[in-house]
């Protein structure tokens, strides 16, 4: 019987190779996806190769990315928000209708819309805690409620189905500069939403990986009971995560309002899945406790590139959703495969 010498160091702290560490990151599948999609469209679509058009692609990605980042944080915290898509419309409508109906300064309407958006998030979180129902059901309820409120209140206030123009009201121009301006950098027209998106990604990534709150998010999503047992304020964390989604919905909603001058009451339905898809492509698990903010932003970039790339290439857009679905499956499989390989090293 040969005696195996005990290893000189604890295997939990052995040094892993840089590649292994890199490959086990949750966003690796999304990064591969970004590279592959970019190569495909660079080859297929001449307009995709032109530097001038980077602004358009980044803009398309940013309107998704602004929501994908808080949605990813929420998913890592173990919850869904199906009301995220219509909440964007609710926020835009709230600002427009309140300002118009009461003759408020536009900035006051913007501020009230922020309160409403945060309140919707807090309500989602509170209801989740109070009822103990899965967030899928709770937010599905909010989704339908908001959809009805959007239509009914708009019709009550304006008599029509979209918000009235408020571009002649005080504060419109300065608010438009904040939420819907664009900068010219060389040949690239960069929308301000791209800056917000990058900022969101940096702040979200820092929050998740470098702070105690980030550890709480991972713990609350991984195993809420165990987290509670070691003193993590699970309920507070989740309510704040829902409010984070509310904040994202507000910023996106304000952009929609100030960039497109009015808000259609039926808009936004279905976008909640796009945010979730971006987060999942970026490596978030549906079960929570694992994922990445940078990955979600890469997921949004994939979405933006695909949406415009198909148009740039002149392909039949009927296939867009099919392409997206295939991309989602590919990213998920690649995530699992690469992670498994890396963990074996």
């Amino acid at each position, binding site marked *: 019987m040969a005696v195996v010498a005990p290893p000189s160091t604890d295997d939990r702290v052995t040094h892993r190779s840089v590649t292994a560490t890199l490959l086990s990151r949750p966003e690796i599948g999304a990064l591969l996806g970004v590279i592959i999609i970019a190569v495909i469209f660079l080859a297929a679509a001449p*307009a995709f190769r032109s530097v001038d058009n980077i602004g*358009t692609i980044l803009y398309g990605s940013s309107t998704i990315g602004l929501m994908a980042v808080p949605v990813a944080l929420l998913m890592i915290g173990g919850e869904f928000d199906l009301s995220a898509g219509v909440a964007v419309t609710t926020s835009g409508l709230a600002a427009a209708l309140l300002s118009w109906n009461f003759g408020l300064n536009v900035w006051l309407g913007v501020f009230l819309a922020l309160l409403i958006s945060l309140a919707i998030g807090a309500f989602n979180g509170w209801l989740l805690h109070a009822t103990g129902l899965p967030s899928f059901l709770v937010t599905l309820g909010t989704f339908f409620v908001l959809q009805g409120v959007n239509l009914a209140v708009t019709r009550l206030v304006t008599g029509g189905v*979209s918000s009235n123009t408020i571009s002649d009201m005080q504060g419109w121009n300065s608010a438009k500069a904040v939420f819907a301006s664009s900068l010219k950098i060389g040949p690239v027209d960069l929308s301000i939403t791209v800056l917000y998106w990058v900022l969101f990604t940096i702040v979200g990534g820092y929050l998740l990986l470098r702070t105690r709150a980030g550890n709480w998010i991972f713990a609350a999503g991984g195993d809420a009971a165990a987290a509670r047992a070691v003193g993590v304020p699970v309920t507070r964390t989740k309510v704040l995560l829902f409010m984070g989604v509310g904040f994202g919905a507000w910023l996106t909603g304000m952009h929609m309002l100030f960039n*497109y*001058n009015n808000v*259609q009451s039926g*808009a936004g339905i279905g976008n909640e899945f796009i945010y979730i898809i971006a987060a999942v492509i970026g490596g978030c698990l549906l079960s929570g406790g694992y994922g990445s903010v940078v990955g979600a932003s890469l997921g949004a970039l994939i979405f933006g590139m695909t949406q415009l790339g198909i*148009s*740039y290439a002149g392909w039949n857009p009927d296939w867009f959703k099919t392409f997206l679905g295939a991309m989602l499956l590919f990213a998920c499989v690649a995530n699992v495969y690469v992670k498994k390989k890396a963990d074996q090293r």
Partner: protein
Amino acid sequence: MIRSNRAAAAALGVTVALSLAACSSSGGKPQATGDTGAAAGKANTPRMTIAMITHQQPGDTFWDIIRKGGEAAAQKDNVDLQYSNSNDASKQAQLIQAAIDKKVDGIAVTDPNTGAIGPTIKKAVNAGIPVTMFNAGGDDAFSLGALGYFGQNEKVSGRAAGERLKKEGAKNVLCVIQDQGQQQLEDRCDGVIAGLAGSGKVKRVYVNGADNSAVTSTLNARLTQDKSIDTVMTLGAPIALDAVKALSQGSSKAKVATFDTNKELVGAIQSGDVQWAVDQQPYLQGYLAVDALWLYNTNGNTIGGGQAVLTGPSFIDKSNIAKVAKYAEKGTR
């Protein structure tokens, strides 16, 4: 193993035999013919790319006819027609932006919401891309800088429908709106009210046009609840067919009239299930929007002299259905 192979072979044999024996002698995909209905010659002008961008709701048959018209013109004019659509105004604006980025040779676009889409259309015009508009947005077309507008004035056509209803003695009309948020549809109902001029009342009902069963059950409920409704005025062909279905399930004796047509609707007019349809000739809208761009790019022509070119309204009813039916079979009316 051998057993299962045999079973598989047997199953395969049976499947092949069945599929050979099970050919239907009627229906199915027609044998290949000219697809867009207008198999004329082809221009020898240089190939150009035209983007057609609409606010089509996914699955609405009306737009197939528009698209066929656009494709027929594209085929004749040696044009590479790139179609895209979104009924979300902000996404439609992005699609227009993509066409500008691509530096296409022309853009044919519908404008259901000038506040949201207008600035991007103007951007295309300023970038030197010729733009035609069709189907929606006629009031704003020329101030945005479009070369021409091809469509009907929704209020005018609604009024024509209302006047006809008045003549037929309608007293209680249900106006069915299938896509909440489209100003065009609201305009049609407003027009119907104006045309009736107080001789009958009009109520609106909102349904989800993308879901036929929901439309049928909503209308059924409405007709049961208010027995005095004598006319159901729908604003799209698939919705009219749903209304016919809802009527067949209940006891209401209301009549159905509609805006727009498709192949099935023509059959319903022939059988008398639907009284008449207001036709705006969608094929013509798609065709002219593309053809006008070709004319402009190859010969500097514009159509309409700075005015909208009206493609409707005209009525299709039992008296002229035979002529239309022939073309509807091909999906071009």
